[in-house]
């Protein structure tokens, strides 16, 4: 249930805590897009929860004037899912970085996709570990030289979009921090979508891995003729690495676990210990 709020503006969602990010960090763009997206949806801050893990981008909830849960590294998704199962009336957005969602918490992504619990995840991917000052990430390109890969990265590069599509995530989109207006629209769509929404955001790190120019050059809007119900086509677009398509890749409606679980409770009765214990009599 999304509670309407009368004429909010993006800055109504901005908290008094100043972001700790480096000047030029892509996450500022994502934060602004989130303010805009939430304002567009007229979400009530007292019924919206931003959940994060650990990393530069995971400081996010502190900068928002909604409910927030800044947790531990990798666990934003299970926390968000537990909260949604218990409180389906709330709007829940999980945020964090590539380390959170594709490394330490990667296992949780698989199960969030399978359960299709109605939450939105925004992954701010800078292809580097920023908070720990410049080590390789699952999304760093092969051969990339970092403090932890002084001889170049000897592993493949993780493909977040192809992974999400392979898991049949019910809403898969990509945005770019330098295009906050388009990103805000994707966030609005993602939050509205009933089910698990995955929004991959290219969000460059100005300090440890400057990808602005490369991403400015590589990003391009997803072809207008793309059919968002065609998962195979979406997969082909996701596997394209020369061009990085921005927009909604795939969307499908299917059963969400939170809905299904709450349907089960429709006949619920208050617990009566006397009645309950009869089974052991």
């Amino acid at each position, binding site marked *: 249930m999304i509670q309407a709020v009368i004429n909010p503006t993006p800055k109504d969602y901005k908290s008094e805590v100043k972001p700790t990010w480096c000047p030029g960090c892509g996450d500022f763009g994502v934060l602004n897009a989130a303010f805009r997206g939430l304002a567009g949806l007229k979400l009530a801050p007292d019924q919206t929860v931003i959940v994060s893990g650990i990393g530069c981008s995971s400081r996010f909830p502190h900068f928002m004037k909604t409910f927030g849960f800044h947790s531990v590294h990798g666990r934003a998704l299970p926390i968000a899912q537990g909260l949604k199962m218990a409180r389906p009336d709330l709007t829940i957005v999980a945020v964090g970085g590539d380390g959170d969602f594709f490394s330490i918490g990667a296992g949780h992504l698989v*199960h969030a996709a399978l359960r299709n619990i109605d939450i939105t995840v925004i992954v701010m991917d800078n292809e580097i570990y920023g908070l720990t000052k410049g080590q390789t990430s699952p999304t760093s390109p092969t051969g990339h030289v970092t403090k932890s890969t002084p001889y170049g990265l000897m592993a493949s590069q993780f493909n977040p979009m192809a992974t999400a599509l392979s898991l049949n995530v019910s809403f898969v989109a990509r945005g770019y921090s330098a295009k906050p207006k388009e990103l805000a629209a994707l966030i609005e769509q993602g939050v509205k979508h009933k089910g698990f929404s995955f929004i991959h955001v290219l969000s460059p790190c100005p300090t440890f891995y400057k990808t602005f120019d490369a991403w400015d050059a590589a990003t391009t809007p997803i072809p207008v003729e793309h059919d968002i119900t065609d998962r195979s086509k979406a997969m082909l677009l996701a596997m394209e690495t020369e061009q990085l398509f921005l927009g909604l890749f795939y969307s499908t409606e299917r059963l969400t676990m939170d809905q299904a679980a709450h349907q089960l409770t429709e006949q619920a009765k208050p617990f009566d210990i006397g009645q309950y214990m009869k089974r052991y009599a």
Partner: protein
Amino acid sequence: MANEVTIRIGGESGEGTISGGDILALASARWGYHVYTFRTFPAEILGGPCMFQIRISDHPVKSMGDYADVLICLNKEACDRNVSELRHGGVLIYDPSDFTPETGDYVTYAVPFNEIARKQIQLFQTKNMVMLGAISGLFGPPPEAIVQVVQSKLSKSRKANATLMEKNLLALEVAKNYVTEHLSKADPYLLGPVERADRLVLNGNQAVVAGALAAQCRFFAGYPITPASDIMEGMAKELPLVGGTFLQAEDEMAALAAVLGASYGGVRAMTATSGPGFSLMTELIGLSSMAELPAVIVDAQRAGPSTGMPTKMEQSDLSFALYAGHGDTPRMIVAPADVADCYNLMILAFNMADQYQMPILFLTDQSLTARVESVDHSNFKPAEIQERQQYHLQTHAENGSNGASKNENALVSAGAASHGYSRYAYTESGVSPMSTPGPGAPVYTATGLEHDEYGHPNYEPEDHTAMMQKRFSKLETAAQVLPTPERYGDKNATIGIIGWGSTEGTIQEAVDRARAKGLRVALLHLKILSPLPDQTISDFIDSVQKVLVPECNYSGQLANLLGAKYGLQAIRINKFGGIPFTAGEILQAIEEVS
């Protein structure tokens, strides 16, 4: 002659040893006897040696018994493994088609279990009924008691049909007639008439589920693990019926994370696991403590370390429960002693979690999870719920801020409130009222980072010092009101015993037996291990000359704690083979120091 018998059934997993034992427990209890069971499982799903021991008595039983009075061997291996646990002058029952036991200091009865099941009943699966028929004929309870249980169990079974029911009941009757006709009773064990009583029969895990439901736990997340899975399965089935939700998590980290999410949303939530899963949950215990989010975590201890012995009992997670997590992390620890405690202390645990906003670790163990006891109805009263301190806008307005809930623009009201809402406010008790997401609630961000009273990240020395003190002060607040343990035994004892967890009944029985021999012994059994009842423990230690600390672990984890906290040089009694103490073992230890 004591109206009591301890029967041990040894056999192969999958041949009805455990199911037969369960029927015997239920039948005896329904007939009016008190029962107490102990069982061991192999790690295998089918096959592997297992045993079931049941003590049946006309008076309350506190332990599994030192020895078996009667040993029923469903194969030769069962005899080899268990005969040393048979009492001198006890009874050994065997099937002559399997083997012939060596002569010893026991009475032997030959009962052709296999032949009766196979040839007369023509259904080998009725072997456990044949066994029960023999038990009924030789020792009791009367066959009617068993028939009632079999009928009600089979009628609920999906495999039920008239022929199966008929064959099971026939097996029972044939075996009973066989023993009365062919055997002449040469042992003293006979369950005489007993006053019919209305008791409940259940195990520790079942009582944990009942307690959680009664305590208004409405969210469970967990990952399957022996011996805690029954709790998860019970909650999965029951929660929707009372309006709750359930999640089988992908691992134990996710399980406790989901619990913290639900708890943040204002819903009472729990998980249940065993040692290996508990190890994985450690980071989330820290988060629960730091972000001050209530959570109840059941650790059904099993023998460790690592994968250890999943189906064996040990009390070896106490040290871990006390200190699990990096940094100084306040938590509370509750350890039930019996099935009734599993219900009542579960309710207490949920109240503690909400009142003090921290993780509550609930330490049962393998023997208690599966221990079936007959328990009086009076132990299962409706729960008294003590809710968490909620922060309301009304409170907020009284505090002088302008968070008026009647403001027509909810956004503005919530926003204004967030400036003034001090989620981690310093209070005398250390407990800060909590805001739960919902219309009109003041917003805040919960965090595992050190923070100021508003929840904003803060690394200043003064802030960290004050916040550490605030979090730990909740333990002191709690210690003043939590129930304290009562001394059991001699008021003027010279020998004291301090115990914890599922061993209480066994130690009490040892104390009773020692006192009957004229020894001056008393027990202080701890059920809350954090915060400890300092005064009660100090007074107890001061009142005796020696203190024994019996524990089923190698290192003496409670003894170490008591040594560190109270300078106690305890006499340690440690058993770490994977099975609980017998009262006889504790008695022997008491006698050795007397």
